[in-house]
């Protein structure tokens, strides 16, 4: 475990000088906007978490980290596992930060100091502050989507090579779209029974529970992707 934490710290320190300014800018801009206009705006901060993930592979390739990984007293599989936990942690911490800003925005109700409180736009703003469920849905949805995409891309990139990463993502999206199309077509023509998707919770507490479940599931998926990748890479030479 110490190895994994050290590598995660190593990755963070690698990305920090490249990402921190962008992250602070994003937090200040989206944080401020969300305080006045809509807590949902906070969830766009999830985009900024990619600043801490995307540069890593470029730096690793440019700086010959393969050699470094070969000389560090760390088990090779742990280097790979750590990268997936790092991706999860970056998204999870962003999600927590967003949750804190959302709570602050809802608690401070700064939108009340804006002019023209009875205007149509302000009614939308008020509605947005009142709709906690939608804000939470966006919060957990963004976390789930981005964390899943980045860990999947990391797995594909490490196993099949960065140069093939885009191709593989496109194939994956194409396959999923095709399956969705076939499934919908067959359902609409009564060729297969219609499957009803479970509806979203009606209450805020239900939505929070759903969010916690989503976090746990994504954590398990990251562990799984990490393990699959580590096992694949262990067969190769550094």
């Amino acid at each position, binding site marked *: 475990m110490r190895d994994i934490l*050290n590598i995660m*710290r*190593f990755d963070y*320190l*690698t990305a920090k*000088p*490249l990402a921190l300014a962008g992250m602070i800018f994003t937090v200040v801009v989206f944080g401020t906007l969300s305080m006045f206009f809509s807590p949902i705006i906070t969830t766009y901060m999830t985009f900024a978490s990619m600043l801490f993930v995307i540069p890593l592979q470029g*730096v690793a390739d*440019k*700086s*010959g*980290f*393969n*050699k*470094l990984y*070969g*000389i*560090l*007293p*760390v*088990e090779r599989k742990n280097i790979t596992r750590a990268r997936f936990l790092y991706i999860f942690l970056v998204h999870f911490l962003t999600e927590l930060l967003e949750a804190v800003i959302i709570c602050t925005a809802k608690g401070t109700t700064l939108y009340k100091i804006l002019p023209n409180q009875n205007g149509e736009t302000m009614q939308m703003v008020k509605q947005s502050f009142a709709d906690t469920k939608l804000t939470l849905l966006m919060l957990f949805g963004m976390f789930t989507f981005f964390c899943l995409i980045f860990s999947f891309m990391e797995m594909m990139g490490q196993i099949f090579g960065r140069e093939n990463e885009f191709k593989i993502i496109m194939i994956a999206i194409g396959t999923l779209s095709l399956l969705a199309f076939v499934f919908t077509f067959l359902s609409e023509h009564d060729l297969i029974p219609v499957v009803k998707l479970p509806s979203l919770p009606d209450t805020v507490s239900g939505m929070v529970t759903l969010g916690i479940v989503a976090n746990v599931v994504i954590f398990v998926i990251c562990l799984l992707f990490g393990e699959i990748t580590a096992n694949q890479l262990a067969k190769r*030479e*550094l």
Partner: protein
Amino acid sequence: MENILEITGLCKAYEDFALKDVSFSLPKGFIMGFVGENGSGKTTTIRAILNMAKIDSGKISVFGLDSVNDTIAIKERLGVVFDSLYLAEHLNIKQIEQQLKPFYKDWDSEEFFSRIKEFDLPDNRKVGDFSKGMKMKLMIAIALSHKAELIILDEPTSGLDPVARDELLDILAEYIEDENRGVLFSTHITADVERIADYVTILHNGKVWYTGTKDELTEGYAVIKGAEEDIPSALKEKLIGFHAYRNGFDALVKTDDLAGIPDTLEYEKASIDEILVYIAKEDKHERHSKHHEI
């Protein structure tokens, strides 16, 4: 003498290259020059020591530990200097120190920064902007800061100016004053080996051509010159890298084989560089190349 590094029967085959039965050992307290032409297998051997390359057969023991099963314990006590930097180029020395520190139990920050000062390295500049000599010194400082007992250098002097090369050799000479340490120094610049190495291993086409002390190597071979017709027939077969010119020939020969040669043939002690050149010539002439060991 206790060996700090011991390689026995190392074999590793790639599609177009193979290490064949590589065996040599480095006793504690000495520097070994690991030489051979480009592509002779030096880097592959080093990668095998570091468990970066999977070996087909053989055994590598570092500090008496197995290079595959005890790789983590070995790397705690091992310093490596590559021909290029392996650190994030956008970071400065302080940030690099923060990154590496937690990985080593024996990391000594004070030692690291005192080495940085001693080597005159700026701690606020990106390491990617360093000159090759500065990068090499940084890698040495890292190795020394976690109290490495064995330093492996893979072509550290290629591309370095003579001053930087000289500085590196001085650092290594100082490092080896502690007799519990060792240095494996891979290079094709044999002048460096002649200057600081106690032992030499010559790798040729993936095989060990020579391993032993440097003195035995340089005493053991000579370059012979003269008229081709003066070569005694018994000696002819023993010549290595025989090359005939319009006015004569030259070749490498074991000094043991020089007894009884005619006065018309001249010979002088061979340098390591000359030995490497004649080994390569021997291949070009497609003569049988024996496994030489003194």
